[in-house]
């Protein structure tokens, strides 16, 4: 039975519909069964960083469309925990000049790195603006700039380019990344001069940021775009920010993707190239394909990529409109359980379950390092890979388990590094069977195979003992059920 989007959303609170929808789901791996709340849990798994019981209440009250609409408007959502956290940060709120001057001290520079990475993890876990945080992650990979070249520039890039435009307009986002010290450093454009222009930014701008490797550009286009961007640089030592240096620019005529850029112009050359690329249909297609891959399936349905690209073109790259289209599509609704969590997804979901305190924020970072997914530490310009096949291997599997067991261990007194209150996650109430059932509902928003559940129940011989409950929670977060979203 085919369910249209409108139909689906209209009845999204109704039990019958969720059950009907069940038959259309593609099941992958060992999956959670969601019964009546299937659609709610699915939407929460994809538009937040992991199921939380309080979000289930919200989505039931607002309905699916209402919840998605709220998440699409993050400025409408109060975020007191994150606001308080950000107010406590030493470096995250400073301007690029102040950061650059402070960063001359190697110890401060080092702490900036620690703070930036921890702030990324913290906001993913605790922000109520979950979808915004997911978009920040998506664009951070799409316009990847690792911290390695300049932490100071990266802090500003993350805040003023990526976060400011994550649900805004693609053209403005593209311009913000181009006019950033971080990007100019990372892709070498800050040292590009008319005599022998540097091609690094020019190539990745087309291949990775806009039209894609098959978007129809030639090696000549790369060279011409490089000429157009000569002079886009950083005034290191004064404002430490992006600026246009007229004396480095190539003023001759250029031809880019069939467009002639007239001779004698300055910064307008690069701006016109960005405009050509932002309006190019290949950009809409390339970006939408990646969005659908991230939010729907590793095998993006061609129908959805095409319709999302149409929205992208019609709205001149309104990211919010494109995301609204994707998240309320029938393809999205039918894609339950098709996404394998990346290591950061897994860790953050564990933090949302346990809400731990760390003795040192290097602990979560250490676990991500073992799994190969420390935020902002991917070197090449293409960003961390997305699909399951990239992440599913022996090293990653083992360290997913170890992370789960390490986090869960923090329930016990005298455990070093991480601490949380397991009574909040798994109160002692009723039989072992009931306790495990409630835990599974709270952590996964559904039920699991009965035999698997009994494996966990059997471990709870003395439910009052925190060490036994911590083991059950650790194994549940290490189980295959927890690896999907």
């Amino acid at each position, binding site marked *: 039975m085919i369910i249209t989007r409108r139909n689906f959303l209209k009845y999204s609170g109704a039990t019958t519909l969720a059950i009907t929808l069940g038959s259309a789901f593609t099941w992958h791996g*060992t999956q959670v069964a969601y019964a009546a709340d299937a659609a709610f849990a699915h939407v929460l798994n994809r538009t937040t960083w992991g199921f939380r019981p309080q979000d289930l209440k919200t989505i039931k009250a607002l309905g699916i469309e209402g919840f998605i609409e709220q998440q699409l408007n993050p400025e409408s959502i109060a975020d007191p925990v994150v606001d308080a956290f950000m107010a406590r940060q030493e470096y995250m709120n400073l301007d690029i000049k102040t950061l650059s001057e402070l960063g001359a001290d190697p110890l401060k520079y080092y702490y900036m790195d620690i703070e930036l990475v921890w702030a990324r993890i913290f906001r993913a876990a605790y922000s109520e603006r979950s979808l915004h945080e997911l978009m920040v992650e998506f664009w951070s990979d799409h316009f990847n700039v690792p911290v390695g070249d300049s932490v100071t520039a990266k802090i500003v890039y993350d805040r003023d380019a990526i976060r400011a435009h994550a649900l805004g307009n693609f053209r403005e986002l593209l311009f913000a990344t181009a006019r950033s010290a971080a990007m100019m450093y990372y892709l070498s454009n800050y*040292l590009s001069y008319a005599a022998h222009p540097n091609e690094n930014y020019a190539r990745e701008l087309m291949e990775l940021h806009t039209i894609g490797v098959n978007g129809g550009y030639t090696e000549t286009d790369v060279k011409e775009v490089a000429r157009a961007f000569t002079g886009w640089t950083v005034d290191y030592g004064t404002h430490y920010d992006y600026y246009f240096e007229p004396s480095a620019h190539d003023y001759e005529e250029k031809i880019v993707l069939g467009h002639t850029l007239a001779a004698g112009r300055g910064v307008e050359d690069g701006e016109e190239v960005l405009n050509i690329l932002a309006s190019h249909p290949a950009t809409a297609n390339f970006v939408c394909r990646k969005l659908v891959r991230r939010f729907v399936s590793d095998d993006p349905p061609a129908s959805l990529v095409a319709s999302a690209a149409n929205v992208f073109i019609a709205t001149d790259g309104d990211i919010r409109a494109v995301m609204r289209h994707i998240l309320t599509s029938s393809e999205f609704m039918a894609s339950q359980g098709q996404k394998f969590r990346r290591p950061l997804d897994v860790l953050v979901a564990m933090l949302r379950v346990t809400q731990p305190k760390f003795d040192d924020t290097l602990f979560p970072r250490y676990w991500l390092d073992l799994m190969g997914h420390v935020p902002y530490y991917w070197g*090449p310009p*293409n960003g961390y890979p997305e699909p399951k096949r990239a992440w599913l291997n*022996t090293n990653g599997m083992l360290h997913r388990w170890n992370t789960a067991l390490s986090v869960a261990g923090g329930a016990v007194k005298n455990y070093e590094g991480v601490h949380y209150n397991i009574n909040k996650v798994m109160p002692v109430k009723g039989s072992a069977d009931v306790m495990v059932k409630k835990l599974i509902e709270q952590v996964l928003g559904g039920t699991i195979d009965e035999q698997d559940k009994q*494996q966990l129940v059997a*471990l709870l011989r003395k439910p009052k003992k925190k*060490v036994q409950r911590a083991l059950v929670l650790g194994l549940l977060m290490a189980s295959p059920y927890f690896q999907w979203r």
Partner: protein
Amino acid sequence: MQTIARREFFGLMKSAGALGISRALFPSWFPRVALRADKSAPPGDILVVVFQRGGMDGLNAVVPYGDGALYYDRRPTLAIPAPNGGDNAALDLDGHFGLHPALRPLKEIYDAGQLAVIHAAGSPDETRSHFAAMELMERGAQGVGGVGWINRHLQTTAWQNESPFRAVGMGTLIQGSLQGPIPAFALQSIAEFHLKGRENQLATIQHTLSNLYSIQAPGDDVDRQAAQVFATMDTMSQLAGQGYTPAHGAVYPETSFGMGLLQIAQLIKAEIGVEVACVDIGGWDTHELQGGAQGEMANVLADFAKGLGAFNTDLGERMRDITVVTMSEFGRRVEQNASDGTDHGHANAMFVFGGGVNGGIHTDWPTLEEHRLDNGDLALTTDYRDVLSEIISARLLNPALDQIFPNYTPTLRGIVRAR
């Protein structure tokens, strides 16, 4: 620039006493992998594949100083001086080419007659995209889906090798060349490759996880990876417990590349069925401030050469049955750019060393004459598949080249000797 040293992480974790990091336990129900007896072990060499990600500048690694002004005039601030005995000059190979001075450890292997330098080599595809070029090179052919050339080699061997360590990929992601139906073992750290939990819970943890992932009858690829973890954890814990001291005074650099090679050496010496191992080294995308005899690229070359030199020293006699090959997705432009760097180019240099290698320079050198360049880049005269085909057939003893590199007929160039 500052990064957080891995050592710091490990120091931090050692302080976490209550975490109870301990060796895994192995109850009687635990499925064990029976390694095949020596007599049915793979008959050929062990292959180690090094991928230099980012596009190595082959013209500064293996310097064509004999091309004179054609090289020096195009690289006014980057060129490596012709051999003159000085520390910043090229190390002469044959009167025309010289190694970058940071490659001295490779020069020693060259002088022992066990290093082949193949110049103007690489992938014939014209793409200058890192990602398209790497993917194509690691697949080894168009239209082979997500299957890499090494995986096709392992699929087509006449022998069987049931070891879960048959194919090893160092790092947190599996190399494209290893991907495919034959499972590869992804390993970042032998010392870390064990379950972490309370000592008295480890048996329970193993038992429960192996049931939750149905490892006796894996239902999907996630279960299969879990089963692979259980099949390898035992051995890794034993190796970690034994510790490892490189032989013959070999000293590996304390970098991820150096530690990757050290662990490959450790796995090979443990005789647990390793046939192929892959390791990556990054830092080659030298668009700016590349430096000459000193500088950024020199540092990466030093890491590369010290690591490979240590590996060669460490393995000693065992190198008779090992072949190491290096490659990169493309070379770099002959002419330097305005940022004292080099942009993406075409042909490159490859290195092959081991007991069965015919040492020396192997090249059909196209020269740097303007009319011989390919869009300003070094022209390609040796397809990298020629080099690999010869290694696979003559050293690994697998004749199925038409399946490993479909629609390609390799030219054999005498880089290695038949076993």
